[in-house]
């Protein structure tokens, strides 16, 4: 499976946030989106996940045009955003059961508890989510996103709030998803942490997407000059 986003443009009133952005992803690929605060990363992720309509642009799935706003496309995607999307008065188990029923997967109690255990929440499954720490909520959020076995996983700063074990769990989960042909698009302010799983970095600057810089087993110091050529040159000059 291959998806291509072509000419995506989005504006809030007169403020143009995304300008003619092109992006392509293939099965088993993970791309990390980089950019400073306000660059438009979250907006791009929301457009890709079908939650925000773009003024222009199209989506091609294996060459066929799809609507970004179609329910079929939305159900192919899963989103982990800054907000957890969890119901605070329901337990971790009830949250997973609720979303699995919405996706018509209707997992059994044992399967849901297994998912909780994979997220490191085996013992907290029956507690209400409002009693969870930020890191525990982030783990549950990731487990919730994976319930639908998404073709495209979209993650906005997924390492936020995760401890060392949580980050390792996320890296493992992403590697598994890639292994079974899933696609991942994520943002990060810590590209070095993302280097363990990402296949390429793409920089979004003032609404314009740069070319993808593929990692190809290189170290961060080898990749960085390709991502930030100007700042590296300035650094050398200083």
């Amino acid at each position, binding site marked *: 499976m291959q998806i291509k986003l072509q000419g995506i443009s989005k504006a809030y009133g007169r403020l143009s946030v995304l300008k003619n952005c092109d992006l392509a992803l293939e099965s088993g690929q993970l791309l990390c989106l980089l950019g400073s605060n306000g660059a438009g990363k979250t907006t791009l992720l929301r457009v890709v996940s079908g*939650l925000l309509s773009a003024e222009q642009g199209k989506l091609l799935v294996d060459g066929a045009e799809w609507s970004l706003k179609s329910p079929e496309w939305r*159900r192919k*995607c*899963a*989103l982990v*955003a*800054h907000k957890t999307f969890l119901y605070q008065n329901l337990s971790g188990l009830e949250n997973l059961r609720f*979303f699995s*029923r919405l996706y018509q997967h209707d997992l059994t109690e044992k399967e849901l508890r297994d998912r909780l255990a994979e997220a490191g929440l085996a013992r907290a499954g029956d507690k209400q989510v409002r009693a969870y720490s930020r890191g525990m909520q982030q783990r549950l959020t990731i487990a919730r996103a994976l319930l639908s076995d998404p073709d495209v996983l979209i993650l906005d700063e997924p390492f936020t709030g995760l401890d060392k074990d949580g980050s390792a769990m996320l890296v493992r989960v992403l590697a598994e998803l890639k292994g079974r042909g899933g696609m991942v698009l994520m943002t990060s302010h810590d590209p070095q942490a993302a280097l363990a799983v990402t296949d390429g970095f793409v920089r979004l600057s003032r609404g314009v997407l740069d070319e993808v810089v593929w990692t190809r087993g290189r170290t961060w110091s080898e990749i960085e000059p390709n991502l930030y050529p100007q700042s590296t040159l300035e650094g050398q000059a200083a």
Partner: protein
Amino acid sequence: MKNWLSTLKTLIWKDLLQEWRSKDMLTAMLAFAILSIFIFNYAMELDPRQRAELAPGILWVVITFSGTLGLNRSFVAEQEQGSFDALVMAVPGLGSIWLAKQISNFLMMLVLIVIVLPIYSLLYNQNLFVPGLILTLILGAWSFSAAGTLLASMTAQTRMRDLLLPVLLFPILMPVNMAVVKAGTGIMSGAALASYQVWLTILLVYGIIMTTISLMVFDYVILE
């Protein structure tokens, strides 16, 4: 269709379980309703005939104002952690999200009516357990929650939702308010069915139209 009904059931279950645990809506609704009934009771000295004629109006004022407080709280859980986005991504037909919320809000209104009626009857020494009046209130509650849920889903995304919802809702509810009060007064004063039947018909038609329109436009309201 089976999947759609299953989704609807799941969404309603979630709303009711959330409300059972948080009591966000019911607490605000009941506190306001009971307080209002007490104030009306002390403020007005009414003879038995006036009581019968005014009861539907007073009751409906109490129910709609309390219901508006509840509607304002009905999307809090979705707004709190952005879970509305997760619902939009998971549910194929977004209309089921609206209908589930509408049914949950309607059930809250029914709970309110069930609690308010005996309190009102006791304080005003007047039997309000009249089948015609109860039917009128149920039809009114359905129309109220149909219009209110759609508007609450729109205003929930704004900072001024507490102010905006009543300002938008009450003009739209004018036909419902008139119909409930007129039909209720007719029933309580023992008038013939023919004299207030038209108001019951208006209530029924309004409920059907508002439900249909809301189901049709909810996708647009949410995604645009």
